[in-house]
């Protein structure tokens, strides 16, 4: 299936801008319904919405970074807040 037509589809382009709000549930009901009607008939947009949702969820699961103990000690030393003052 050619996806060259995606960028030519105005409907799809307009909806792309609303994907974030749609996924976060911050659109009004009427707009949601309209988007869902479009998704029912547009495989490309369905793929974009699904993978966009997955992207956001994956990044929320990315482990947070922790400063190492040694770097923490260096930080306190630089700030002159270490206990060996």
């Amino acid at each position, binding site marked *: 299936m050619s996806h060259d037509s995606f960028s030519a589809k105005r409907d799809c382009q307009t909806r792309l801008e609303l994907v974030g709000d749609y996924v976060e549930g911050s659109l009004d009901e009427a707009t949601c319904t309209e988007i869902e009607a479009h998704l029912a008939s547009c495989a490309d947009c369905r793929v974009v919405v699904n993978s966009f949702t997955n992207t956001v969820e*994956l990044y929320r699961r990315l482990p947070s970074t922790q400063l190492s103990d040694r770097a923490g000690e260096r930080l306190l030393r630089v700030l002159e807040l270490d206990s060996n003052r």
Partner: protein
Amino acid sequence: MNEEHLLAQAKSGDPTALAQLVEEHKDTVYGVALRMCGNPHDAEETLQETFLSAIQALPRFEGRSKLSTWLYRIASNECLMRRRRAARGPVELSVDAEDDPADVMPKYFVDWSYQPDDLLLDAELQEVMEAAIQTLSPALRIVFVWRDLEGLSTAETAEVLGISESAVKVRLHRARLQLREALSAYFLDRDNPIASDVAAA
């Protein structure tokens, strides 16, 4: 020590109170610095510079914003100044081009048929995700990091970065779209090596 008392003590230079503030916020500041700088060495320097500046300026903190917002603003400025020095050029946050969503058109239509929970966040995927963050422009990256990785609200992110909430939303959206493209390319390559070769041809 309750928060108000802690702040008062920290403002007066009490080392115990200052150490507690550092302890409360160091991981967040480091996390942002690491994603903005791209390496632990520069991130650690940025972290140190952030807290040095903050401790120096703390006596003048008037409490018009939350302490964390104020601190994160200092951290963001340190990150962006460091990038400016590295790039030897200005790193603008308020560039109109970053706020124009028109040119982020999807190229990859890979259907990740997985539920996010089914996806094993293994070391390779984490590496890909971190590398993808590094491909974002500074203006998009810093919004994404504060909003989606550190969990600040739109309003807080706008306050930290000194940009409008509308700019935060647009840049977050663009960042997420770009990351979606990067991950889609990865999954296309991982799961369909033949198909990805054909797509590349």
